């Protein structure tokens, strides 16, 4: 560590920008950019210390930096790590100096920083106005636009089917822990299938706790890549501690939300080279899980039967839902275009309100229609329609 401390103090990555100021700013990352833009554009007398190698903290450089300063501000995203380093170095060296940052609430603990947050901070510590443009504001209220599952997404079918199974069993106490991926979008209505999420792998870990601490049913969701990353240790705990819940592993054969990177379940690695494919079901089986089923989520009837069985199972029940992500190239299920046969449709709106596929909409006359530009031809709506009113366009 001593060697690294020396390196940190001599590295060109940790750089001091002098502007003959009495106030100094210690900063790193994106926040450095906001500080430099504000300082240069407004010709502020502020010295800046850019810390790139933050650990071990360059203590000697800091002491050099503050030599002629009256006060210092620390501008860093998230937790006040550097700010505490600065305070401890000043303390150790018996130096009395004001340190502004998150701890004295000069900067907010919440929010990602913006140029405006940083400019306002500089105004406070310099006690000087910085000219800013007057932003416009609008009084018109506008609807939010959250992201949603794609048309033809296998996660949508899983959520629809799990909810259908739960309702048909008359269960109204189910807790749905979830994990990090596209399927976190299950939090939206009508699925409402994301009650609890802490971090990667927490879907399974917290399910163990919920199943011990409550008598409620628990159904949790985790994607294939998150399962490989952080789902295996809690699954081992669940089996060993005789917990009771349903674990749905959503295997869409990619890391979809972040742009389709491969994961260990694929025969190809991050560089595109051939790589050994790791089997999710072999891992699950090896933990000693007594109920393991694989489903094709696009088969609504069979999936529902499986979920009912899994919910009745007294122990850890694992259902692996296998269907590739619809964004994978060439995944369109069929070339056939689907349409709602108006003479059969009784406007029950199961497709619109329960399945809630974004390719299905109501037109100006209140008729249910399918947007063929968006539709992926997955055929799930064909199966859920009680009137059998959705079919191939002839």
């Amino acid at each position, binding site marked *: 560590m001593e060697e690294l401390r020396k390196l940190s103090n001599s590295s060109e990555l940790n750089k001091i920008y002098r502007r003959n100021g009495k106030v100094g700013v210690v900063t790193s990352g*994106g926040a*450095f*950019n*906001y500080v*430099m*833009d504000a300082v*240069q554009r407004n010709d502020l007398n502020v010295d800046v210390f850019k810390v790139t190698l933050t650990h071990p903290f360059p203590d000697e450089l800091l002491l050099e930096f503050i030599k002629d300063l009256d006060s210092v501000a620390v501008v860093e995203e998230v937790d006040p790590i550097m700010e505490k380093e600065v305070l401890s170095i000043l303390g150790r060296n018996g130096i009395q100096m004001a340190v502004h940052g998150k701890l004295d609430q000069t900067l907010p603990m919440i929010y990602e920083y*913006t*140029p*405006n947050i940083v*400019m306002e901070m500089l105004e406070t510590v310099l006690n000087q106005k910085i000219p*800013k*443009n*007057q*932003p*416009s*504001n*609008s*009084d*018109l*209220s*506008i*609807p*939010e*636009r*959250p*992201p*949603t*599952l*794609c048309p033809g997404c296998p996660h949508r079918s899983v959520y629809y089917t799990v909810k259908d199974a739960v309702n048909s069993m008359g269960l109204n106490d189910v807790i749905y822990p979830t994990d990090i991926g*596209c399927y976190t*979008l299950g939090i*939206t*209505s009508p699925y409402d299938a994301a009650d609890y999420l802490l971090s990667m792998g927490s879907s399974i870990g917290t399910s163990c706790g919920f199943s011990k601490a409550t008598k409620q049913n628990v159904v949790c969701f985790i994607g294939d890549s998150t399962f490989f990353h952080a789902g295996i240790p809690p699954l081992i705990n669940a089996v060993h501690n005789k917990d009771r819940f349903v674990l749905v592993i959503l295997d869409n054969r990619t890391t979809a*939300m*972040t*742009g389709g990177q491969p994961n260990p379940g694929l025969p190809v690695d991050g560089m595109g080279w051939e790589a050994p494919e790791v089997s999710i079901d072999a891992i699950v089986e090896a933990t000693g899980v007594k109920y393991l089923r694989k489903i094709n989520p696009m088969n609504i009837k069979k999936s529902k039967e499986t979920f009912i069985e899994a919910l009745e199972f007294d122990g850890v029940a694992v259902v692996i839902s296998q269907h590739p992500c619809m*964004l994978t190239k060439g995944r369109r299920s069929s070339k056939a275009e689907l349409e709602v046969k108006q003479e059969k449709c009784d406007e029950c709106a199961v497709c619109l309100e329960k399945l*809630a596929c*974004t390719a299905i909409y109501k037109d100006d006359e209140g008729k249910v229609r399918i947007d063929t530009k968006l539709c992926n031809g997955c055929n799930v709506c064909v199966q859920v329609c009680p009137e059998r009113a959705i079919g191939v366009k002839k």
Partner: protein
Amino acid sequence: MKSYSIYISGVGGQGIIKTSTVMGEAAMKTGLPVVMSEVHGMAQRGGSVSTELKIGDNYSPIIELGSADLLISFEPVEALRAVPKISKESYIILNTNPIYPFNLNETGVSYPDMEDVLTELDEKTKQVYALDADKIARESGHSLSMNMVMLGAASAVEGFPIEKGTIINSMKANLPEKSLEINLKAFTAGFSFVKSS
């Protein structure tokens, strides 16, 4: 040069990030320093998407409130969402074709009337160029070339710092060859719309 800030907003899937890439690379070809930031991940999932570009001597790509010189909005409500970034000095290129949020019925907020959107934006800025870019794209050969209609329109705005020809070269380098002709036609149609307004 004076720094030039461009804010692009719209809905995932409209080709916003591609448009920014074409613009950013064109700026680099011109020898102008450029920084860019984007929202992604949401792109193909129908959420709000925005990118910020600053051309000139800057460290951060994030545009200060009220400081965008140009707002290119691919969707009317997304232009209103971007209002804090603009000022009385800004220009707006607005695609008037609305995309209704999938959860509109649950939000309790209705989609505003187009007339109100235009009046609101007109009051807030120097000039709004409103066009049905989807329609112009279809007339140019394909609805997916809508983003290039918007790019063409932006390139014709007073003060826009990149030459038309440099943008076209960047399109050639960044777009698939088979759709290039349609995209160029779309770009030209957007450019002429603003020039003749």
